[in-house]
């Protein structure tokens, strides 16, 4: 069978991947397919299993159960030095006793490439990450951002089938982080290498990913494009983790085709637009993003989907105003950029009306 | 298995198959542990198995002149622990050990405090001055005490010359010289242990205490002293074990009237050649040392808890 003619464009396949540490289940039955050239993100809070999953792809951890396939070939039991992956570590892990050039050349040396080729490839790679001129420096003489680039160059130069990045930007300061995001994305697109990026920073994931895998307690919560994840979270956790969400618990009161009416626990009703015709559980929670709530000083004419609350406080944020509104026992956060939220002169204890469009209501299982 | 007659080249390993099996099992399960194999093997073959041998021999019957027969007799232990002569030896050893331990702790504590609080060059110099005796071998230092304490030695010559005394003092081959020698041996270790504990103390706690109204002495007692007690205790226990088990110092700096447990053991093994009896004494000494070590282990746990808080 000619592998090259194989129609699978999946560079990485994870099948039932599980990792158990003593009594904790770090990774629980993860199934994932990563396409060639894709920039995939593993996103989640600390302890969710994303780094462990990454390490299992790279071979630095052995799975307790399940299979890892790279380019169609199962690599369980194959040690990291024989896998076609390269990792960029969170704290860079540069060899302190080798120069920048020697660090980058290391992988090629292990492959026993001829010296001239190594020299040329190292030079090209350092150009690509904008570090020409620093070949003879030692890691101790470099700044954080420079070390990051060396680590990146070192991984890229071996032309791996899969590039693995373990929270590579978390040790950098904000401005540098934003700059590196742009660089990494650019390089990835140029080279078209399949990349798996682990982070807990959702802004990073939303900005750079082709697809995001949201993980929680070792399991996959949701897989989708940044747009899908942000606007159509399927669970309370995802909705809460990505961006901000207000949650209104309630019970299903009526169903009308692809819309439902939810009776809220704190009073009032909301009509919500569902994204599909799947059955809806009875106990639900409606999630609404702060920027999708429209504020009114007086009850608007169209009475549907309007909730009444009291202003607790208003914080001036420059481009917006941030409202804390009491609704029943609940505190709702609103950042209304279009309507009355832009007006000044709001007082606390003032009555306010919250209008929420049906399509802005995310119906999530409780 | 017939008698273990001296000189028979019987591999000891064959006598302890169960232990070896268990170790093998553990190593097979976790590949990572293989890096410890040489160390564990070494400890096993040259320490733990010989200790078991020692225990076994201590139960044997002495036939005389270094030959012994397998038996199960507690004679050795009973003799050692009941005969008034040996009881005197035990008592003497303990007395000396307690004395050395107390002095080293009391005198060492302020020094440890001083060095732990010192900074820069002063600290490095002090540490160096402690490290040098630590690594200089004991026999050489004992010789130094010979020169200092001897009849025609330094102290006597000095005191005679300034007319402080008329006749040379007898300072060597006394309990005093044994204590001095043991102190010299024990001090560097005790100092380093206590210094490392002191350095783990958060000095801002003292500032907090002063801020809350404690006097210098009170803040020292409530904070520093109480936090350093576990380290204090560990240092003391080590000093005790080593003073008890030390051989060179009492044998050289003491006269034949100063017999310690270690001297008895060496005597029985090397001179009298009553190996079973010697083994009983040795094993008793071993058990005392090990118990003391376990106690000190517990105390280090406690001190670790303090630091984490």
């Amino acid at each position: 069978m000619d592998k090259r003619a194989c129609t699978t464009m999946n560079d990485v396949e994870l099948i039932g991947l599980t990792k158990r540490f003593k009594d904790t289940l770090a990774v629980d039955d993860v199934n994932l397919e990563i396409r060639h050239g894709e920039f995939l993100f593993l996103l989640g809070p600390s302890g969710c299993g994303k780094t462990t999953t990454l390490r299992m792809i790279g071979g630095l951890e052995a799975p307790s159960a399940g299979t890892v396939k790279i380019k169609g070939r199962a690599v369980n039991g194959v040690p990291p030095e024989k896998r076609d992956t390269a990792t960029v570590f969170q704290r860079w892990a540069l060899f302190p006793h080798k120069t920048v050039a020697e660090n980058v050349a290391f992988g090629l040396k292990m492959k026993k490439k001829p010296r001239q080729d190594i020299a040329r490839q190292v030079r090209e790679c350092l150009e690509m990450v904008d570090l020409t001129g620093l070949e003879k420096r030692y890691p101790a003489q470099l700044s954080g951002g420079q070390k990051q680039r060396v680590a990146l160059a070192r991984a890229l130069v071996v032309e791996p089938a899969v590039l693995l990045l373990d929270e590579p930007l978390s040790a950098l300061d904000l401005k540098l982080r934003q700059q590196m995001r742009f660089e990494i994305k650019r390089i990835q697109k140029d080279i078209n290498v399949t990349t798996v990026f682990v982070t807990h920073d959702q802004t990073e994931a939303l900005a750079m990913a082709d697809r995001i895998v949201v993980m929680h307690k070792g399991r996959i919560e949701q897989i989708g494009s940044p747009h899908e994840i942000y606007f159509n979270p399927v669970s309370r956790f995802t909705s809460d983790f990505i961006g901000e969400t207000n949650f209104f618990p309630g019970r299903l009161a009526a169903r009308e085709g692809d819309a439902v009416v939810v009776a809220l626990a704190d009073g009032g009703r909301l009509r919500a637009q569902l994204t599909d015709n799947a059955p809806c559980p009875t106990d639900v929670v409606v999630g609404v993003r702060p920027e999708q709530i429209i504020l009114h000083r007086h009850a608007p004419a169209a009475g549907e989907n309007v909730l009444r609350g009291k202003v607790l406080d208003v914080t001036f944020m420059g481009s917006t105003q941030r409202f804390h509104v009491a609704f029943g026992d609940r505190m709702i956060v609103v950042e209304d950029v279009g309507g009355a939220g832009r007006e000044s002169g709001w007082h606390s204890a003032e009555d306010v009306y919250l209008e929420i469009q049906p399509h802005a209501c995310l119906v999530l299982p409780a | 298995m017939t008698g273990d007659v001296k000189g028979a080249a019987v591999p000891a390993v064959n006598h302890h198959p169960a232990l070896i099996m268990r170790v093998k099992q553990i190593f097979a399960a976790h590949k990572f542990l293989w890096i410890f194999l040489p160390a564990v093997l070494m400890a096993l073959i040259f320490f733990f198995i010989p200790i078991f041998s020692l225990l076994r021999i201590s139960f044997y019957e002495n036939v005389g002149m270094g030959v012994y027969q397998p038996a199960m007799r507690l004679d050795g232990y009973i003799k050692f622990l009941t005969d008034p002569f040996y009881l005197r030896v035990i008592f003497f050893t303990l007395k000396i050990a307690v004395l050395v331990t107390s002095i080293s702790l009391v005198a060492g504590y302020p020094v440890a405090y001083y060095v732990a609080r010192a900074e820069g060059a002063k600290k490095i110099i002090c540490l160096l001055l402690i490290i040098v005796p630590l690594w200089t071998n004991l026999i050489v230092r004992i010789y130094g005490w010979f020169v200092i304490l001897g009849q025609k030695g330094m102290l006597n010559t000095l005191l005679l010359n300034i007319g402080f005394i008329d006749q040379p003092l007898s300072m060597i081959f006394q309990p005093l010289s044994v204590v001095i020698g043991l102190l010299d041996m024990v001090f560097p270790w005790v100092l380093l242990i206590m210094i490392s504990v002191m350095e783990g103390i958060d000095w801002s706690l003292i500032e907090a205490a002063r801020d809350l109204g404690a006097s210098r002495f009170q803040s020292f007692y409530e904070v520093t002293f109480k936090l350093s007690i576990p380290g204090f205790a560990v240092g003391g226990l080590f000093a005790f074990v080593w003073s008890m088990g030390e051989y060179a110092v009492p044998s050289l700096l003491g006269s034949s009237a100063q017999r310690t447990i270690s001297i008895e053991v060496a005597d029985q093994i090397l001179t009298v050649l009553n190996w079973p009896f010697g083994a009983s004494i040795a094993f008793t000494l071993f058990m005392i040392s090990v118990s003391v070590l376990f106690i000190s282990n517990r105390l280090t746990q406690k001190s670790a808890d303090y630091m984490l808080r």
Partner: protein
Amino acid sequence: MDPSSAETRQRIDWPAVALTVVTVCVLTFILAPIAITMLVSFNKGSYIVFPPEGLSLRWYKAFFDDYWWIMVFKNSLLIALPTMAVSTTVGVLAALGYMKRTFRGRNVINLIIMMPFLVPGIIIGICLLMFAHRIGLSNTYAIVIAGHSLWATPTVFLLVQAVLSGYDFEIEDAARDLGAGPIKTFFLITLPCIRTGVLTAMIFSFITSFGEFSIALFLTAPATMTLPVQIWNSLKYEVSPIVAAVSTIMIVITLAAIAVGAKFAGVKTLSER
């Protein structure tokens, strides 16, 4: 009582003074025998008197001329060098494994490795004496090397641990990730980075074996006798200033070792217990 600022300046800080005095006394106490020995070794006269009657190197000459002392010195070397090799190898490997990560049984391993060092030396001497008889290794260099390695490995173990606290184990993962097998990683990455630690361990395991007495007393025969045992014999039976010369030589070796070790690893690491 609230003293005025003028009074505080004049008041002597008694506790601090007392502290300094005690420290000076104790440090003098532990250094005195070493210093005195060195001075006495240059004594012209033939008694161990102090102050020395005159300066001369005759006792050093006597040492180098005495074939017995030289033989004993050679024995010490013949034992200390292999001990250095064995204990450094074993101890470095053990320390690497110990510091790399926590694992179940880590404390047990620590105990197993450290125990031989923590019990009095004569116990090891006695046990190995009996053991040597049973396996036919009595009166050989081998059994002394074994005993000394057992004694020196814990020292190496502790020393290398102190050095490893500054070592980033993740670079080994990086090397594996880039294609180096475990053995290549060890020789290309691990060893070069812990070079100073290994050297320091070698130096101090050598010193430990060279100066070790209690174990050697039980395990050496006249033919394999080591320097400390011979000094002990001399002190027991006849005290000649040659002993002072020998002792000074040993002291100087120790000082050199400490100097080199301090340079490589820093004084702080050397004082880790």
